[in-house]
């Protein structure tokens, strides 16, 4: 890998991640998104190569096409105003996710382990007196179980991409191998990839452990390994992550993350 630092003078790591994640969204898909960073890829896909996706928010908005800015939450007016249907949680997480009508879900997490299990509940090992109390599952768990596949978008740090999560909120491949299906009877297919500000991790097809599949052009596999909390394997066919083009960057900055809160692009223009 190049380790070309010039790259991040023109595009931010989270813009690269957003673009990489958006490419999993193809026409005809029903896609669930959460808050924050996980909002952006589906919207980017919808505005570029996959206009015919149905975006669903668990609160009950189906067929949302937010206009104007990044919503504060999945209950935001910009989501509700342009949707095709406003309904309830039993329809979105039950009928759709549990019932097999969801193709792809974008999730964020505080921690992700080697099998793609996610923690959004507590940091620390004493559940009753946690070091940090986090929001909990929300609908993330329900989507991790029921969605055909899901993608994780998060920052890559050694205490966040870890051997074992402090608390397993949303299941990835559980204990590895076929355990997700054989032991725990889950319906969906688990994580397709974990996309971070440094790399794209994908599950090994046999033991389902996350491996380095792509490395963002400004960094190296060594850097990625250093920032990972377990002895992560590098795929033999590892490659550089594709960079977003001018069109995608324009849409991210001018239409989606106008304030730069999520991708941090405004920092590029600060002296």
């Amino acid at each position: 890998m190049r380790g070309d630092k010039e790259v991040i003078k023109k595009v931010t790591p989270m813009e690269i991640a957003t673009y990489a994640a958006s490419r999993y969204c193809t026409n005809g898909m029903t896609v669930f998104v959460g808050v924050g960073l996980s909002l952006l890829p589906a919207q980017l896909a919808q505005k570029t190569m996959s206009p015919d996706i149905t975006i669903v928010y668990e609160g009950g908005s189906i067929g949302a096409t937010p206009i104007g800015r990044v919503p504060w939450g999945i209950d935001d007016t910009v989501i509700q105003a342009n949707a095709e249907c406003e309904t309830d949680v039993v329809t979105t997480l039950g009928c759709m996710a549990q019932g097999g009508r969801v193709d792809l879900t974008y999730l964020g997490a505080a921690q992700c382990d080697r099998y793609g299990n996610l923690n959004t509940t507590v940091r620390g090992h004493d559940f009753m007196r946690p070091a940090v109390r986090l929001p909990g599952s929300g609908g993330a768990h329900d989507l991790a179980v029921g969605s055909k596949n899901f993608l994780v978008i998060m920052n890559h740090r050694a205490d966040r991409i870890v051997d074992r999560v402090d608390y397993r909120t949303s299941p990835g491949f559980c204990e590895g191998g076929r355990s997700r299906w054989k032991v725990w009877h889950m319906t969906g297919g688990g994580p397709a990839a974990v996309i971070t500000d440094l790399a794209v991790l994908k599950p090994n097809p046999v033991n389902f452990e996350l491996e380095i599949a792509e490395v963002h052009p400004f960094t190296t596999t060594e850097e990625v390994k250093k920032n990972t909390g377990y002895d992560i394997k590098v795929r033999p066919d590892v490659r550089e992550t594709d960079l977003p083009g001018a069109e995608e960057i324009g849409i991210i900055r001018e239409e989606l993350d106008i304030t730069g809160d999520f991708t941090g692009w405004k920092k590029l223009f600060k002296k």
Partner: protein
Amino acid sequence: MNVIAQGSGKVFADPDADKARAFFRKKNRKMVSKLMTVKEAVEKFVHDGDYLCIGGFGANRIPAAVCHEILRQGRKNMAFAGHTSTHDFQILCAGEVFNKLDVAYIVGLEARGLSVGARRYMESGKVEISEWTNYSLSVRFKAGAAGVSFYPARNIMGTDTFKYSGAKIIECPFTGTKYAAMPAIYPDVSALHVHEADIYGNCRIRGITVSDLDVARASKHLIITCERLISNEEIRREPSLTVIPYWCVDAVCEVPYGSYPGNMYGEYFSDEDHLREWLKVEENPEEFKKFLDKNIYGCKNHFEYIEKNGGLERLQVLRQKELMFTGARS
């Protein structure tokens, strides 16, 4: 039915459908005016130790006026359903109203960040917790609404959330499929904010309904705050718009801008400046106390709270903002 495994979490609301049925058999379903103030409604229907549920999703369509009044009246030791709960949760934590909690989504205000105040309370060890997910709590209300004691779901197995939940794993008698049995919740009292209601409690809602329709049907007592009162004739003119029937409702309080500082679909946008101020001021406990005295304890009602934060002029701005976004549909 064989229980294959079960979580260690407590079930705070009694799922017994027979007891709930006995209660509802005796409950008055007369079509009488239920108009009252928020203060009267909370005095009458919200008690220490009750199981409480608050409607809305995140900061959308929340009965903020009821949450504030619960703090002013000093309710304690309640059980609470932390279901898609953000600013309402932040308010209730500030008053340390509950000490038993069903968790699905708490502490965070979605993309706005985490509430330091709510975290402080949750990390204090004062609150007994059962963990669930949004779908789990939704079907627990669904079971309550249908008058049964549990609802099967295919989630929660294989996680720590199951370990800390009160769910039980069972096998389907028809197919042998493994399900997590979710115990029904019949809340002692719930509060919902709606767009329009008549004096009897027939309600209309625009936008997402989350789990509110099931919550309304499962609750033993229900407080409705509404943006506008409308006539019963208007309700009867278009009955298909009625999403909550009057006999679910115990109190109807007309509170325009009742979701402030949250948003109300088609009416007004959330006051992001005020929510940001709230998140910021929580970092300093002294300042936060003053902030609460100003905005909750020192206010007579919701109108006074809004008056202190920009009044009608501010609301007009939020209204225009909302109409700009909803206008984007063309």
